[in-house]
Structure formats: C-alpha cells, structure tokens
C-alpha cells in the first residue's frame, strides 16, 4: 500500500517544553488510522503540526512530496484537510456559506457536486442551510465542520476529537459517516479519546502517551491488548473535556 502521509521522527515544542518527541506514523490510501490516548498526550498538537498550524522538527511528506516548504493554504490545496478540535466555523455566516467557503480552492462546478454529496451525507445540514453556523447545536456544528472540510475534496481528512462533548447517538452517527468516507476514496486520520468507537472503525491504530507512541498495530491487535483495554477501554470517560 502506498503511503499518502508519512511522518518521520517528528518533534514539536512549545518554547522549551517538548510536547511531541520522536513520533513516526504513516497513513495509506483508503485507510482509516486512529491515534488514541489520554488528555494532554500530544495528539492535537501532532495534528496541528502536520497541518502547519504549529512548527515541527522532522520530516513529513504528503502524496510523495516534502511538506516542509508549504504553509497551511498550500497543504489544503494539495488535499490535506483538518477538522480542528474547536471546529473554527464562521459563526456569523450561514451553513451554506460555510460549506461554499470549504470549496474555496475548488472549481465552481466541482463544488456544486460536492455540496450535493455533503448534503446527502448530512441531511441535517440541508435542513438548516440558511441558519447561522453559530446557532447550531454541538453535533450539527461538528457535522458542518466535517462537511466544510469535505467540500475541499481532500485526499486525507484529519479529525480531531469529533465526538467531544456530543450525545452518544450523534457520536454513533458521526462515526458511521467517517466509515463511509473510505468508500468515497478519502483516507482518515482520527484522533480520539473515545478509543472504543475509534478502534471499531479504524484499520490501524497508534497509542500515544506523554508525547510518544507507545504502541502501534492493527485496530484489532490494539483493541485486544490488555494494557490498552485497562487504560483506554475499561475506564472510558465520555465527554471529558480536553485541555
């Protein structure tokens, strides 16, 4: 399987504090990969750095090209997309405007078909398309954030805690849709505290602790691992807020 994203020996620091130390990972085409771990393990930091929001030391390539010289906007144009933890929607604009801006780098004709696809995936958004994004419920905002990212026709979608603070029924809905993305040819890098749900849909998984990967393997192996079961599956705290 050819790797879409490769991250090799990456270090990320906030001033003198090293938040991520020597992490390597790869995501193949049509693959769902998850990073699980507790609060403050460095998962969000890692995703932000891969997107270019934070600077990193180490080597990263996307679709075979070195990502070092490109900034966030260039990375979006090459098909990398991040749905950030805080969603970063355009709150005072309506749902449809938010989605259209998601296709900012895409030709208008392509964007029109993407919009239909997003509305098929998230019928709720179509019902609310003239409503301001800031007035949506948490679950709808998460759907909008994912929809907006999908409008840019990404090859790899990075999701940061999509289940955070959402009701279980909506979490199930969102995970079902993440599973469907693979059929549409989108790879997913999923960061989650809800390890159980993440391991059910993922192909492979990495376990992160204190800025390092302590374990990696297929989702089944990780789910069967006794240490993981004790730390992440047995004592699952739903809806716990991240730092």
């Amino acid at each position, binding site marked *: 399987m050819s790797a879409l994203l490769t991250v090799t020996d990456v270090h990320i620091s906030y001033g003198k504090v090293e938040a991520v130390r020597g992490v390597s990972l790869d995501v193949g085409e049509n693959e769902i990969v998850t990073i699980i771990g507790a609060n403050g393990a460095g998962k969000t930091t890692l995703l932000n750095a891969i997107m270019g929001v934070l600077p990193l030391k180490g080597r990263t390539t996307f679709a075979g090209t070195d990502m070092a010289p490109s900034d966030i906007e260039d990375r*979006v144009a090459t098909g990398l997309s991040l749905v950030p933890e805080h969603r970063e929607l355009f709150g005072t604009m309506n749902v449809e405007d938010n989605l259209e801006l998601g296709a900012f780098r895409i030709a208008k004709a392509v964007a029109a078909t993407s919009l239909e696809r997003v509305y098929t995936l998230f019928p709720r958004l179509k019902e609310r398309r003239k409503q301001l994004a800031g007035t949506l419920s948490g679950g709808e905002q998460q759907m909008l954030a994912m929809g907006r990212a999908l409008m840019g026709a990404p090859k790899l979608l990075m999701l940061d805690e999509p289940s955070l603070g959402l009701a279980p029924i909506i979490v199930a809905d969102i995970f079902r849709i993440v599973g469907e993305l693979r059929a549409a040819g989108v790879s997913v890098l999923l960061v989650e505290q809800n390890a159980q749900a993440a391991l059910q849909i993922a192909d492979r998984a990495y376990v992160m602790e204190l800025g390092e990967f302590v374990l990696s393997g297929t989702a089944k192996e990780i789910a069967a691992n006794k240490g993981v079961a004790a730390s992440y599956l047995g004592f699952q705290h739903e809806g716990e807020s991240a730092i």
Partner: protein
Amino acid sequence: MNTTIMLFLLQDGITNGAIYALLGLALVLVFAVTRVILIPQGEFVTYGALSYAMLATGQVPGTVRLAVAMGLVAFALDLFFARKALHAKLVMRSVALNIVFPFALLGLVYALVGPHTPIAVNIALALLIVAAIGLFLYRIAFQPIAHTSVLVLLIASVGCHLALQGLGLVFFGAEGLRGPALSGAAVTAGPLRFTGQSLAVYGLTVGFIVALWLFFGYTKTGKALRATAVNRLGARLVGIRTTLSGQIAFLLASVIGAISGILIVPITTLYYDTGFLIGLKGFIAAIIGGLVSYPLTAVAAIVVGIVEAFSSFYASNFKEVIVFTLILPVLVLRSLAAPQVEEEKD
C-alpha cells in the same frame, strides 16, 4: 432660523456625511478583515485629492515616486521572508506586483501628465497611485505583524499616519490645493441648488454601499474576506490566504479614501494634513457602528455630517468639539452594554 437655512444646513451636512460614510465603511472593512484601526485613512484622502489636484495642473505628484519606493521595499521584504524557499513563480509574482506595476504607473504618469489631460484620466491616475500605496503599506507595515494584538497594530497604524503625513508635506507643500470640479452642471430644486459635484458625492456613496453589500454578500472573494474577519484559523484551514484578504481590504480602503478626497477637493481647499480630521470623523461613525456594522456606520456618518453643519452655523468655534463629543455617550453606552473587554484569543 427659517426653513431655507435649515434646508441648506441639512444639504451641507448630508454631503459631508456621505463622505464620512465612505471613510467609515472603509475603516470597518479594514478592521473586520485585519483588526487594524486604519488611522492613515485620512492620508489616503489627502494623497488622492492632492495628487489629483497636482495632475490637473500638469505636475507630477511626488506620491507616484513614493509608490515606486514602497514597491521596492515590499519586493525586498517578499524576498527576505521567502529566502528559505524561493520558487520562480513566487519571485515572478512579486516582481510583477511590486516592481513592474509601480514602474509602469510611473511611466504612465510621465507619459500622460499635462495641463490638458482629461479629468477622467487624472482621476484614474490618482486612484492607481493611492491604490498602490495602500497595497504596499499593508505589505510593509502590517503583514509582518498581522498576528499581533490590536494594540500593536494600532501603534503601527499611528506610525504610518505620522510618516505619511510628513511625506505629504514634502510632496504637496504647506500651501493648500483645490482641484477642478468633476462636472459644472447644477440642478435647482426649490431653494436648494444641487451642483454636479454634490450629486456625484451622493451617487458614488450610494453606489459604493450597494457595491460593498453585493461584494460581501454574493461573491466568493467577498465571503472569503468576511470569513477571514470571523475566524482567521478557520479561513486558513479552507485555503483562504489571509495575507491576500488583508491586501484586498487595504486596496479597497485606499481607493475609497482617494475617491473621497477627489470628491471633496473641488469643494474645499485641502492641505497636506486635512485628511486626518476628515478621517477622524469617519472613525467616529465607525465607532458608533461598533466597528462591525456597515449600515449603522453609514447612518452615523450622516448624523455626524448634519451635527457638524448645524454646529458650524450656531457655534462655529466649537464645531469640532461638538462633533467629537458625540463619541462620548456612545462609548459610555457601549461600555455599559458590554461590561467585559475581550481581547481576541490569537
């Protein structure tokens, strides 16, 4: 006081208010997109007005040389910031924008300048000059510090205002200038006489407000500018270049400023430092509009213009005092309505 005088004052107030409205809208636009409180807006007014007035007398205004100089600095900055990853495409784009454009403008000014150049050509040249200065001003002074706090941006803005005003004295001298009217036509309605100039002021103001409304409500670029204003990180994550948004905002603001100047300079004599006071009145309107609302800003600007007209009739010594005092009750009300001062998170 009789009705005729009142009508005259109203007419005067609305004409000035329309100009303030244009400037206020530009201030709101720039603040929304870049968080810069654009103090040098007044200099765009003077530069536009006086460049136009000098071109009309057949002289080459110094502002065009300033545009070339700023272009060179902007080019140097582009090269410096991209030194780690210099692509041919990037350099070519920078050369075209920062070198070719101002030098072409310089050539154009020298080729076309003369005492008999048509008014329309002079206006176009003056607008292009100020547009270039506005664009480069963002690149040089604000783009490198775009991520800093509103206060830092404000201080940079004051610095730009002082520098541009000083340069204005060099370019235009201490003497005031007047420019030729856009049209000599006049319409009489009852006791009021509407000159072609004041009609142009109304027409352009309304036109700009409608154009801005259409631009922000219905075009992709306009929506992208709004998105940048609402959420910078969100905008970057969908691939909107926030630096480009800033450049577009400054370009629009400088052109609006220059147009305002060209509209006023046939009515009143402008000096190199007049723009600041005019800009401040637009600023009051923008503050009343909370630096966010375009319609409220436009209405407030008309009120400022009318108050100014009446106070200059009744108490001309206190004209500015009365106008600027308008801001106090507004600030008090706003601080009561929003007790907590929120500094943006990034």
